[in-house]
């Protein structure tokens, strides 16, 4: 069955590649901007970590930008997402700002979590970003619960939960998918299959090739998408979001993608678990270069305009990093704050 799955994957990926240009200029540019913002943020964050300036370290999303961009393009601030330990890209694509993000990574007071969460718990309730999560498989039960609330409160909102190929083997993911399908919840399960969980290959974690095949076991549709193609992710998500908003229930979208750097940081732990060639092969399908080729080919913009995008993003990042380093650490007196909500119990 792995074989047939393989075939399927190839098919879908192929399909995706052709689609590209179908989208409007506005959307293509939005997808591009999201990805550039993520890429530039991560490269700077990674550099800071390698310079030992980021306490506790971080997990980089570089290479996987197309997934966050393609999915989040369909969401608004009333929609929720739950993220993973690799969560910067999700927050940025959901509208996260660089200043409170860098400040959080550095443990400073103006950070999104006032310095209490850091990279692994970065979140913004205002933006509907219900948190990166240090627990693999930690986000799916929460997203399922949020999706339930959306239905219960008769909102149009959708809850999207991101998880990796490794997370797919956690019991919590199984329980959440089954409940989401059972209650027909507006919940979208986006599996970011980058082929590895830390230093374990997917083949070292499961027999199947397409995690999307598990969707059938819950009675929900499962699709495999080229996670290196933002437009393909965008189109797959469009159907899933439509389905979710109209009471059709959950969807499992598996995005085949790749992380360019180590599990942690850039150089990481120097474990020997994949080849340089493999990394190079995937980089040839870089999602940002791809969309830039598509945009220029389709005459949606010039190289100069693309350069301008980078310029302004780089400027924002520079300012944000400066802001973060200038920002104060939280006062030790804040240690015991935020454990409980002190509001009077409501009568």
């Amino acid at each position, binding site marked *: 069955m792995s074989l047939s799955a393989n075939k399927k994957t190839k098919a879908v990926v192929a399909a995706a590649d052709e689609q590209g240009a179908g989208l409007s200029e506005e959307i293509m540019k939005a997808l591009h901007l999201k990805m550039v913002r993520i890429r530039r943020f991560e490269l700077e964050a990674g550099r800071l970590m390698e310079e030992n300036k980021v306490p506790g370290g971080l997990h980089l999303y570089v290479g996987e930008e197309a997934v966050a961009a393609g999915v989040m393009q369909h969401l608004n601030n009333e929609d*929720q997402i*739950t993220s993973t330990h690799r969560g910067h890209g999700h927050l940025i694509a959901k509208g996260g700002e660089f200043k409170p993000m860098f400040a959080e990574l550095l443990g400073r007071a103006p*950070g*999104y*979590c*006032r*310095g*209490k*969460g850091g990279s692994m*718990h970065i*979140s*913004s*309730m*205002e933006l509907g970003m*219900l*948190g990166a*999560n*240090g*627990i693999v498989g*930690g986000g*799916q*039960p*929460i*997203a*399922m*619960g*949020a*999706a*339930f*609330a*959306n239905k*219960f*409160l008769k909102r149009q909102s959708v*809850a999207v939960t991101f998880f990796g190929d490794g997370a797919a083997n956690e*019991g*919590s993911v199984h*329980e*959440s998918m*089954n*409940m989401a399908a*059972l209650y027909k919840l507006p919940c979208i399960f986006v599996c970011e299959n980058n082929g590895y969980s830390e230093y374990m290959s997917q083949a070292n974690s499961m027999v199947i090739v397409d995690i999307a095949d598990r969707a059938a076991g819950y009675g929900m549709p499962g699709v495999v998408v080229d996670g290196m193609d933002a437009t393909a992710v965008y189109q797959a998500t469009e159907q899933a979001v439509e389905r979710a908003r109209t009471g059709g229930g959950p969807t499992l979208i598996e995005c085949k993608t790749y992380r360019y750097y180590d599990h942690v940081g850039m150089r990481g732990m120097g474990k020997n678990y994949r080849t340089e060639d493999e990394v190079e092969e995937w980089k040839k399908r870089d999602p940002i270069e791809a969309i830039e080729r598509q945009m220029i080919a389709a005459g949606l913009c010039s190289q100069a305009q693309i350069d301008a995008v980078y310029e302004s993003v780089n400027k924002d990042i520079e300012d944000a990093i400066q802001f973060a380093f200038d920002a104060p650490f939280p006062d030790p007196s804040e240690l015991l*704050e*935020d*454990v*409980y*909500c002190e*509001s009077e*119990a*409501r*009568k």
Partner: protein
Amino acid sequence: MTEARSLPYVSAINDGLRQILREQDNSFLAGEDLKAGSVFGFANGIHEKFGDERVFDTPISEKGIIGLGVGAAAVGCRPIVDIMYMDFLGECMDEIANQMAKMRYMFGGAATLPVTVLTMAGGGMNMAAQHSQCLEAWLAHLPGIKVACPSNAYDAKGMTIAAARDDNPVFVVYNKLSLATKMEVPKGSYEVPLGQAAIRREGTDLTIVAISRMVNEAMTAAEELAELGVSVEVIDPRSVSPFDTDTVIKSIKKTHRALVAHEAVKFGGFGGEIAAQIQELAFDYLDAPVMRVGAPFCPVPFSPELEKAYIPDAKTIVKTVKEMLAL
């Protein structure tokens, strides 16, 4: 508070749940077999009254059940979810300890989780090692949640209401053997505040701090001891987190002797925290060491004969008090 009538603990829970579902449109009741009223019957008739949207069954997926509560609470609901037996906490301890208890703090206070978790603890019904445990010590050790252990019908209703009105995650740990015990329970709405101990009996010679059903055993023991001329004060903390240290210390400063009693395994149990606090804060007032009564260091045995020997009761308490007073 309106008129009261004699009600068993199980019906008092039912009363409290109806009160909450009536007053809070954004609350719902979910768990295994709740449509059928729960296997313990505390939800009998509630599904019929409030319907499929407000009261529903979940698959046997405890991680999902807690996630349902956490996620729905984070975005505007006030969920009440049920973990059928406290013994099953292990199935969802990550969702409880790493998500529910920490989300607000990790997010710098941005998240508010008004979620209530109901569960059922205790032995004495020959249900063996996996359906008889008292694991409040696991929960009390977790900053970010509150843990109520109602010992009687009045509290069972009042703490269920208080828990569901609280804007924090609250566990209400009911007790199986108490389900049938009756007492006067007011109709309508009232709260038993979390973190306020109750002095169940005043005394001058010794204070027994007893958790959940052990309060009743302590009261029985106090009667027996009274006949021996020993005046026992019985304190029911009612919630182990927050824990009402002041009321306990005040009592010890009066009686100069303390015994802590819970049904949970003594070793590593919450009684250690209570005993440690007492000697820490009332050291100069103590005429004797704080003693603890709890289950021995083994799983709950099935055989009635063994379980009888396992679970602490009034006899165990009387025996320990006599030793303390060299009677």
